[in-house]
Protein backbone atom coordinates (compact mmCIF):
# COMPACT_ATOMS: atom_id res chain seq x y z
CA UNK A 1 0.00 0.00 0.00
CA UNK A 2 1.36 3.42 -0.90
CA UNK A 3 0.84 6.67 0.98
CA UNK A 4 -1.75 8.03 -1.42
CA UNK A 5 -3.96 4.98 -1.02
CA UNK A 6 -3.37 4.94 2.74
CA UNK A 7 -4.40 8.56 3.13
CA UNK A 8 -7.61 7.80 1.25
CA UNK A 9 -8.56 4.98 3.59
CA UNK A 10 -7.21 6.41 6.84
CA UNK A 11 -10.37 8.39 7.65
CA UNK A 12 -12.32 5.13 7.56
CA UNK A 13 -9.59 3.28 9.46
CA UNK A 14 -9.65 5.86 12.25
CA UNK A 15 -13.37 5.30 12.77
CA UNK A 16 -13.17 1.51 12.60
CA UNK A 17 -15.09 1.40 9.34
CA UNK A 18 -12.77 -0.93 7.43
CA UNK A 19 -13.03 -4.68 7.07
CA UNK A 20 -10.41 -6.73 8.95
CA UNK A 21 -8.36 -7.34 5.79
CA UNK A 22 -8.34 -3.71 4.76
CA UNK A 23 -7.50 -2.63 8.29
CA UNK A 24 -4.55 -5.08 8.39
CA UNK A 25 -3.19 -3.56 5.19
CA UNK A 26 -3.41 -0.07 6.62
CA UNK A 27 -1.82 -1.12 9.94
CA UNK A 28 1.08 -2.69 8.06
CA UNK A 29 1.63 0.53 6.17
CA UNK A 30 1.43 2.62 9.35
CA UNK A 31 4.22 0.53 10.88
CA UNK A 32 6.55 1.67 8.13
CA UNK A 33 5.46 5.21 7.35
CA UNK A 34 5.94 7.96 9.92
CA UNK A 35 4.12 10.59 7.91
CA UNK A 36 1.00 8.48 7.57
CA UNK A 37 1.26 7.59 11.23
CA UNK A 38 1.14 11.25 12.13
CA UNK A 39 -1.78 11.76 9.77
CA UNK A 40 -3.59 8.90 11.45
CA UNK A 41 -2.92 10.16 14.96
CA UNK A 42 -4.45 13.48 14.17
CA UNK A 43 -7.51 11.77 12.62
CA UNK A 44 -7.82 9.45 15.60
CA UNK A 45 -7.76 12.27 18.14
CA UNK A 46 -10.31 14.15 16.05
CA UNK A 47 -12.47 11.03 16.07
CA UNK A 48 -12.20 10.72 19.83
CA UNK A 49 -13.16 14.35 20.21
CA UNK A 50 -16.19 13.83 17.98
CA UNK A 51 -17.19 10.83 20.06
CA UNK A 52 -16.85 12.88 23.22
CA UNK A 53 -19.67 15.08 21.96
CA UNK A 54 -21.92 12.06 22.37
CA UNK A 55 -21.80 12.37 26.12
CA UNK A 56 -23.76 15.57 26.18
CA UNK A 57 -27.49 15.22 25.83
CA UNK A 58 -30.62 17.32 26.03
CA UNK A 59 -31.27 18.76 29.49
CA UNK A 60 -34.21 17.52 31.61
CA UNK A 61 -35.59 21.06 31.70
CA UNK A 62 -35.69 21.28 27.90
CA UNK A 63 -37.28 17.83 27.73
CA UNK A 64 -39.92 18.73 30.28
CA UNK A 65 -40.85 21.89 28.44
CA UNK A 66 -41.04 19.94 25.15
CA UNK A 67 -43.37 17.42 26.80
CA UNK A 68 -45.60 20.18 28.13
CA UNK A 69 -46.24 21.25 24.57
CA UNK A 70 -46.42 17.76 23.12
CA UNK A 71 -48.81 15.85 25.36
CA UNK A 72 -51.85 18.13 24.92
CA UNK A 73 -51.27 18.07 21.15
CA UNK A 74 -51.13 14.26 21.19
CA UNK A 75 -54.43 14.04 23.04
CA UNK A 76 -56.22 16.26 20.55
CA UNK A 77 -54.60 15.07 17.37
CA UNK A 78 -57.15 14.05 14.76
CA UNK A 79 -56.08 11.39 12.30
CA UNK A 80 -57.07 11.88 8.68
CA UNK A 81 -59.34 9.29 7.07
CA UNK A 82 -56.54 7.96 4.88
CA UNK A 83 -54.35 7.36 7.93
CA UNK A 84 -57.21 5.54 9.65
CA UNK A 85 -57.84 3.45 6.55
CA UNK A 86 -54.15 2.58 6.19
CA UNK A 87 -54.03 1.74 9.88
CA UNK A 88 -57.08 -0.48 9.60
CA UNK A 89 -55.64 -2.34 6.63
CA UNK A 90 -52.17 -2.74 8.11
CA UNK A 91 -53.09 -3.55 11.67
CA UNK A 92 -56.02 -5.81 10.87
CA UNK A 93 -54.00 -7.65 8.24
CA UNK A 94 -51.71 -8.84 11.02
CA UNK A 95 -54.53 -10.87 12.53
CA UNK A 96 -54.44 -14.44 11.19
CA UNK A 97 -58.16 -14.90 10.63
CA UNK A 98 -58.52 -11.69 8.64
CA UNK A 99 -55.34 -12.38 6.75
CA UNK A 100 -56.74 -15.77 5.78
CA UNK A 101 -60.01 -14.22 4.61
CA UNK A 102 -58.07 -11.64 2.64
CA UNK A 103 -55.98 -14.33 0.98
CA UNK A 104 -59.12 -16.32 0.09
CA UNK A 105 -60.71 -13.26 -1.52
CA UNK A 106 -57.53 -12.58 -3.44
CA UNK A 107 -57.50 -16.18 -4.75
CA UNK A 108 -61.15 -15.98 -5.84
CA UNK A 109 -60.68 -12.65 -7.60
CA UNK A 110 -57.55 -13.74 -9.42
CA UNK A 111 -59.11 -17.10 -10.39
CA UNK A 112 -62.10 -15.28 -11.89
CA UNK A 113 -59.81 -12.92 -13.69
CA UNK A 114 -57.70 -15.71 -15.17
CA UNK A 115 -60.76 -17.71 -16.17
CA UNK A 116 -62.03 -14.70 -18.08
CA UNK A 117 -58.65 -14.12 -19.60
CA UNK A 118 -58.53 -17.74 -20.73
CA UNK A 119 -62.01 -17.46 -22.18
CA UNK A 120 -61.03 -14.35 -24.08
CA UNK A 121 -57.83 -15.86 -25.39
CA UNK A 122 -59.54 -19.07 -26.47
CA UNK A 123 -62.36 -17.24 -28.26
CA UNK A 124 -61.00 -13.91 -29.34
CA UNK A 125 -63.39 -11.23 -30.45
CA UNK A 126 -60.68 -9.26 -32.20
CA UNK A 127 -58.52 -10.23 -35.12
CA UNK A 128 -55.53 -12.46 -34.34
CA UNK A 129 -52.58 -12.05 -36.68
CA UNK A 130 -49.75 -14.54 -36.85
CA UNK A 131 -47.34 -12.12 -38.43
CA UNK A 132 -47.97 -8.69 -39.80
CA UNK A 133 -50.68 -9.69 -42.28
CA UNK A 134 -51.59 -13.38 -41.81
CA UNK A 135 -55.05 -13.57 -40.23
CA UNK A 136 -56.17 -16.60 -38.24
CA UNK A 137 -59.71 -17.75 -38.93
CA UNK A 138 -61.88 -17.20 -35.82
CA UNK A 139 -62.89 -20.77 -34.93
CA UNK A 140 -66.23 -19.86 -33.38
CA UNK A 141 -67.51 -17.30 -35.89
CA UNK A 142 -70.71 -19.31 -36.33
CA UNK A 143 -71.64 -18.44 -32.72
CA UNK A 144 -71.43 -14.76 -33.58
CA UNK A 145 -74.21 -12.38 -34.50
CA UNK A 146 -75.50 -12.44 -38.07
CA UNK A 147 -75.22 -8.86 -39.15
CA UNK A 148 -77.05 -9.37 -42.40
CA UNK A 149 -76.93 -11.05 -45.73
CA UNK A 150 -74.72 -9.89 -48.57
CA UNK A 151 -76.32 -9.92 -51.96
CA UNK A 152 -74.15 -7.52 -53.91
CA UNK A 153 -71.77 -9.16 -56.33
CA UNK A 154 -69.25 -10.66 -55.95
CA UNK A 155 -70.56 -11.63 -52.50
CA UNK A 156 -73.53 -13.61 -51.37
CA UNK A 157 -74.03 -15.14 -47.96
CA UNK A 158 -74.28 -14.36 -44.24
CA UNK A 159 -72.10 -11.82 -42.50
CA UNK A 160 -71.02 -12.62 -38.94
CA UNK A 161 -69.61 -10.19 -36.37
CA UNK A 162 -68.55 -10.86 -32.77
CA UNK A 163 -71.10 -9.87 -30.08
CA UNK A 164 -68.57 -7.60 -28.35
CA UNK A 165 -67.85 -5.66 -31.52
CA UNK A 166 -71.57 -5.42 -32.29
CA UNK A 167 -72.38 -4.11 -28.82
CA UNK A 168 -69.76 -1.43 -29.15
CA UNK A 169 -71.14 -0.51 -32.56
CA UNK A 170 -74.60 -0.07 -31.06
CA UNK A 171 -73.24 1.97 -28.21
CA UNK A 172 -70.85 4.25 -30.08
CA UNK A 173 -71.89 4.01 -33.71
CA UNK A 174 -68.56 2.63 -34.89
CA UNK A 175 -66.79 -0.69 -34.86
CA UNK A 176 -63.82 -1.05 -32.51
CA UNK A 177 -60.29 -1.52 -33.79
CA UNK A 178 -59.65 -5.21 -34.47
CA UNK A 179 -63.25 -6.01 -35.45
CA UNK A 180 -63.53 -9.06 -37.75
CA UNK A 181 -66.47 -9.56 -40.07
CA UNK A 182 -66.76 -12.97 -41.64
CA UNK A 183 -68.74 -13.57 -44.82
CA UNK A 184 -69.73 -17.16 -45.40
CA UNK A 185 -70.69 -17.78 -48.97
CA UNK A 186 -71.50 -20.80 -51.09
CA UNK A 187 -69.26 -20.29 -54.05
CA UNK A 188 -70.69 -22.17 -56.95
CA UNK A 189 -67.39 -22.79 -58.65
CA UNK A 190 -65.76 -24.43 -55.57
CA UNK A 191 -68.54 -26.65 -54.37
CA UNK A 192 -67.52 -25.96 -50.75
CA UNK A 193 -67.77 -23.03 -48.39
CA UNK A 194 -65.59 -20.00 -49.03
CA UNK A 195 -64.97 -17.56 -46.22
CA UNK A 196 -64.04 -13.96 -46.60
CA UNK A 197 -63.24 -11.51 -43.89
CA UNK A 198 -62.73 -7.81 -43.44
CA UNK A 199 -60.74 -6.55 -40.48
CA UNK A 200 -60.74 -3.05 -39.06
CA UNK A 201 -57.05 -2.32 -38.59
CA UNK A 202 -55.40 1.02 -39.10
CA UNK A 203 -52.29 -0.56 -40.54
CA UNK A 204 -54.17 -1.17 -43.77
CA UNK A 205 -54.98 1.43 -46.36
CA UNK A 206 -58.05 3.39 -45.21
CA UNK A 207 -58.29 1.30 -42.05
CA UNK A 208 -59.69 -1.98 -43.37
CA UNK A 209 -57.95 -5.15 -44.54
CA UNK A 210 -59.56 -7.86 -46.71
CA UNK A 211 -58.97 -11.60 -46.61
CA UNK A 212 -60.13 -14.76 -48.36
CA UNK A 213 -59.92 -18.24 -46.78
CA UNK A 214 -60.05 -20.50 -49.83
CA UNK A 215 -61.84 -23.79 -49.44
CA UNK A 216 -60.10 -27.12 -49.90
CA UNK A 217 -60.86 -30.76 -49.29
CA UNK A 218 -60.86 -30.27 -45.49
CA UNK A 219 -62.87 -27.08 -45.52
CA UNK A 220 -61.62 -23.49 -45.55
CA UNK A 221 -58.01 -22.63 -44.78
CA UNK A 222 -57.22 -21.90 -41.12
CA UNK A 223 -55.25 -18.77 -41.97
CA UNK A 224 -54.59 -16.54 -44.89
CA UNK A 225 -52.63 -13.51 -45.97
CA UNK A 226 -54.24 -10.16 -46.69
CA UNK A 227 -55.46 -9.64 -50.25
CA UNK A 228 -53.32 -7.14 -52.14
CA UNK A 229 -54.75 -3.74 -52.93
CA UNK A 230 -54.75 -4.75 -56.57
CA UNK A 231 -57.60 -7.16 -55.76
CA UNK A 232 -59.76 -4.05 -55.81
CA UNK A 233 -61.78 -4.70 -52.65
CA UNK A 234 -61.45 -1.16 -51.45
CA UNK A 235 -63.13 0.42 -54.43
CA UNK A 236 -66.56 -1.03 -53.55
CA UNK A 237 -66.09 -1.21 -49.78
CA UNK A 238 -65.10 2.42 -49.49
CA UNK A 239 -68.58 3.51 -50.57
CA UNK A 240 -70.13 1.36 -47.86
CA UNK A 241 -67.81 2.49 -45.13
CA UNK A 242 -66.77 -1.03 -44.05
Amino acid at each position, binding site marked *: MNCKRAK*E*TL*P*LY*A*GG*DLSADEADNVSAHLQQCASCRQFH*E*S*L*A*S*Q*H*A*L*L*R*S*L*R*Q*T*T*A*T*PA*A*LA*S*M*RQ*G*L*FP*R*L*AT*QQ*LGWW*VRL*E*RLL*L*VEARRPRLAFAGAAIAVIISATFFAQLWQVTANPTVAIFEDSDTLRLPADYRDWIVLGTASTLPHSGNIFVSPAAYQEYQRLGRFPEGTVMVLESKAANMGGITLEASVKDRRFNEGWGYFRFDGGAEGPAKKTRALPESAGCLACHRDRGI
Partner: protein
Amino acid sequence: MELLMTRLPDSETAPETLEIETLVRKTLAGDCRAFEQIVLQYERRVMTLSSRLLHGIDEAQDATQEVFLRAFKYLHRLDVRRPVEPWLMRITVNVCRDIQRKTQRRHYTFCEVPLPETETPGRGPDPYSGFAWEQERQRLWTALNALPEKERMALILRDVEGFSTAEVAEILGSSETTVRSQICRGRLRLKEAMDRKTGDQS
Protein backbone atom coordinates in the same frame (compact mmCIF):
# COMPACT_ATOMS: atom_id res chain seq x y z
CA MET B 1 -2.20 8.01 21.64
CA GLU B 2 -3.20 8.95 25.11
CA LEU B 3 -6.58 9.98 23.82
CA LEU B 4 -7.56 6.56 22.60
CA MET B 5 -6.73 5.08 25.96
CA THR B 6 -9.23 7.13 27.81
CA ARG B 7 -12.57 5.85 28.88
CA LEU B 8 -14.94 5.28 26.00
CA PRO B 9 -18.16 7.21 26.26
CA ASP B 10 -21.00 5.38 27.93
CA SER B 11 -23.21 3.78 25.41
CA GLU B 12 -26.85 4.69 25.67
CA THR B 13 -28.59 3.03 28.57
CA ALA B 14 -30.49 -0.05 27.45
CA PRO B 15 -34.13 0.67 26.62
CA GLU B 16 -36.30 0.47 29.69
CA THR B 17 -37.85 -2.81 30.51
CA LEU B 18 -41.28 -1.72 29.37
CA GLU B 19 -42.20 -3.88 26.46
CA ILE B 20 -42.38 -1.62 23.40
CA GLU B 21 -44.66 -4.04 21.60
CA THR B 22 -47.29 -3.79 24.32
CA LEU B 23 -47.10 0.00 24.29
CA VAL B 24 -47.48 0.15 20.52
CA ARG B 25 -50.47 -2.18 20.62
CA LYS B 26 -52.11 -0.16 23.37
CA THR B 27 -51.53 3.09 21.49
CA LEU B 28 -53.02 1.69 18.31
CA ALA B 29 -56.02 0.60 20.33
CA GLY B 30 -56.48 4.28 21.27
CA ASP B 31 -54.57 4.59 24.53
CA CYS B 32 -52.77 7.93 24.45
CA ARG B 33 -51.06 7.27 27.80
CA ALA B 34 -49.20 4.32 26.34
CA PHE B 35 -47.70 6.56 23.71
CA GLU B 36 -46.56 8.98 26.41
CA GLN B 37 -44.54 6.08 27.82
CA ILE B 38 -42.89 5.65 24.44
CA VAL B 39 -42.12 9.37 24.36
CA LEU B 40 -40.46 9.16 27.77
CA GLN B 41 -38.27 6.32 26.59
CA TYR B 42 -36.98 8.00 23.46
CA GLU B 43 -37.37 11.78 23.97
CA ARG B 44 -33.78 12.31 25.03
CA ARG B 45 -32.38 10.57 22.00
CA VAL B 46 -34.67 12.41 19.60
CA MET B 47 -34.15 15.82 21.13
CA THR B 48 -30.40 15.40 21.35
CA LEU B 49 -30.17 14.52 17.67
CA SER B 50 -32.52 17.39 16.76
CA SER B 51 -30.42 19.86 18.68
CA ARG B 52 -27.33 18.65 16.86
CA LEU B 53 -28.91 18.86 13.45
CA LEU B 54 -30.62 22.19 14.05
CA HIS B 55 -29.64 25.34 15.89
CA GLY B 56 -31.15 26.61 19.07
CA ILE B 57 -33.18 24.95 21.74
CA ASP B 58 -36.48 26.27 20.39
CA GLU B 59 -36.02 24.64 17.02
CA ALA B 60 -34.98 21.41 18.68
CA GLN B 61 -38.07 21.43 20.88
CA ASP B 62 -40.37 22.09 17.94
CA ALA B 63 -38.67 19.35 15.97
CA THR B 64 -39.00 16.84 18.81
CA GLN B 65 -42.70 17.56 19.17
CA GLU B 66 -43.18 17.16 15.44
CA VAL B 67 -41.23 13.87 15.43
CA PHE B 68 -43.46 12.35 18.09
CA LEU B 69 -46.63 13.65 16.46
CA ARG B 70 -45.57 12.01 13.21
CA ALA B 71 -44.55 8.83 15.00
CA PHE B 72 -47.95 8.77 16.70
CA LYS B 73 -49.73 9.24 13.38
CA TYR B 74 -47.75 6.58 11.53
CA LEU B 75 -47.19 4.18 14.42
CA HIS B 76 -48.94 1.40 12.52
CA ARG B 77 -46.08 1.45 9.99
CA LEU B 78 -43.57 0.54 12.67
CA ASP B 79 -42.38 -3.04 12.61
CA VAL B 80 -42.22 -3.85 16.33
CA ARG B 81 -39.88 -6.76 15.77
CA ARG B 82 -37.14 -4.35 14.72
CA PRO B 83 -35.48 -1.71 16.91
CA VAL B 84 -37.57 1.44 17.33
CA GLU B 85 -34.66 3.83 17.53
CA PRO B 86 -33.53 3.86 13.86
CA TRP B 87 -37.16 4.37 12.83
CA LEU B 88 -37.49 7.38 15.15
CA MET B 89 -34.11 8.71 14.04
CA ARG B 90 -35.25 8.50 10.45
CA ILE B 91 -38.33 10.58 11.26
CA THR B 92 -36.11 13.00 13.19
CA VAL B 93 -33.80 13.47 10.20
CA ASN B 94 -36.78 14.08 7.93
CA VAL B 95 -38.38 16.55 10.32
CA CYS B 96 -35.11 18.45 10.74
CA ARG B 97 -34.64 18.56 6.96
CA ASP B 98 -38.15 19.98 6.62
CA ILE B 99 -37.49 22.63 9.24
CA GLN B 100 -34.21 23.60 7.59
CA ARG B 101 -35.94 23.87 4.24
CA LYS B 102 -38.69 25.99 5.75
CA THR B 103 -36.40 28.42 7.51
CA GLN B 104 -34.08 28.46 4.49
CA ARG B 105 -31.24 28.71 6.92
CA ARG B 106 -27.84 27.64 5.79
CA HIS B 107 -25.38 26.67 8.44
CA TYR B 108 -23.21 29.31 9.89
CA THR B 109 -20.09 28.88 7.90
CA PHE B 110 -17.97 31.69 9.13
CA CYS B 111 -19.15 32.32 12.61
CA GLU B 112 -19.00 30.21 15.68
CA VAL B 113 -21.84 27.80 16.29
CA PRO B 114 -22.69 27.34 19.92
CA LEU B 115 -22.74 23.75 21.12
CA PRO B 116 -26.28 22.62 21.78
CA GLU B 117 -27.48 23.37 25.26
CA THR B 118 -26.99 20.04 26.84
CA GLU B 119 -25.88 18.38 30.00
CA THR B 120 -23.20 15.83 30.60
CA PRO B 121 -24.29 12.90 32.72
CA GLY B 122 -22.49 13.09 36.00
CA ARG B 123 -20.95 9.68 36.01
CA GLY B 124 -17.34 9.94 37.02
CA PRO B 125 -14.99 12.61 35.78
CA ASP B 126 -15.37 13.70 32.19
CA PRO B 127 -12.02 13.05 30.54
CA TYR B 128 -12.66 15.95 28.22
CA SER B 129 -13.38 18.52 30.86
CA GLY B 130 -11.30 21.62 31.27
CA PHE B 131 -11.20 24.86 29.42
CA ALA B 132 -8.74 23.79 26.71
CA TRP B 133 -10.82 20.78 25.83
CA GLU B 134 -13.97 22.80 25.84
CA GLN B 135 -12.40 25.21 23.40
CA GLU B 136 -11.19 22.39 21.20
CA ARG B 137 -14.63 20.82 21.20
CA GLN B 138 -16.16 24.13 20.29
CA ARG B 139 -13.77 24.53 17.36
CA LEU B 140 -14.56 21.04 16.14
CA TRP B 141 -18.29 21.63 16.41
CA THR B 142 -18.02 24.85 14.41
CA ALA B 143 -15.96 23.10 11.74
CA LEU B 144 -18.43 20.22 11.64
CA ASN B 145 -21.28 22.63 11.02
CA ALA B 146 -19.44 24.19 8.12
CA LEU B 147 -19.32 20.85 6.26
CA PRO B 148 -21.60 20.19 3.30
CA GLU B 149 -25.00 19.15 4.61
CA LYS B 150 -24.88 15.49 3.61
CA GLU B 151 -21.44 14.93 5.07
CA ARG B 152 -22.43 16.81 8.21
CA MET B 153 -25.49 14.60 8.74
CA ALA B 154 -23.57 11.40 8.05
CA LEU B 155 -20.81 12.38 10.48
CA ILE B 156 -23.21 13.42 13.21
CA LEU B 157 -25.05 10.12 12.96
CA ARG B 158 -21.98 7.92 12.63
CA ASP B 159 -19.40 9.58 14.88
CA VAL B 160 -21.37 11.66 17.34
CA GLU B 161 -24.50 9.53 17.70
CA GLY B 162 -22.56 6.31 17.20
CA PHE B 163 -24.81 4.48 14.77
CA SER B 164 -23.28 1.82 12.51
CA THR B 165 -22.79 2.66 8.84
CA ALA B 166 -25.69 0.36 7.92
CA GLU B 167 -27.97 2.11 10.40
CA VAL B 168 -26.90 5.54 9.15
CA ALA B 169 -27.72 4.46 5.61
CA GLU B 170 -31.15 3.31 6.74
CA ILE B 171 -31.78 6.52 8.68
CA LEU B 172 -30.71 8.76 5.81
CA GLY B 173 -32.50 6.59 3.26
CA SER B 174 -29.40 6.07 1.15
CA SER B 175 -26.96 3.26 0.42
CA GLU B 176 -24.15 2.07 2.63
CA THR B 177 -21.55 2.81 -0.04
CA THR B 178 -22.72 6.40 -0.33
CA VAL B 179 -22.69 6.87 3.43
CA ARG B 180 -19.21 5.38 3.68
CA SER B 181 -17.82 7.79 1.15
CA GLN B 182 -19.64 10.72 2.78
CA ILE B 183 -18.15 9.77 6.13
CA CYS B 184 -14.68 9.38 4.64
CA ARG B 185 -14.82 12.71 2.84
CA GLY B 186 -16.37 14.43 5.85
CA ARG B 187 -13.66 13.28 8.25
CA LEU B 188 -10.95 14.37 5.85
CA ARG B 189 -12.52 17.76 5.27
CA LEU B 190 -12.99 18.21 8.99
CA LYS B 191 -9.33 17.48 9.58
CA GLU B 192 -8.33 19.96 6.91
CA ALA B 193 -10.52 22.62 8.47
CA MET B 194 -9.09 21.94 11.93
CA ASP B 195 -5.50 21.98 10.62
CA ARG B 196 -6.15 25.21 8.80
CA LYS B 197 -7.52 26.87 11.91
CA THR B 198 -4.60 25.67 14.00
CA GLY B 199 -2.32 27.13 11.37
CA ASP B 200 -4.12 30.46 11.58
CA GLN B 201 -3.75 30.65 15.30
CA SER B 202 -0.07 29.82 15.51
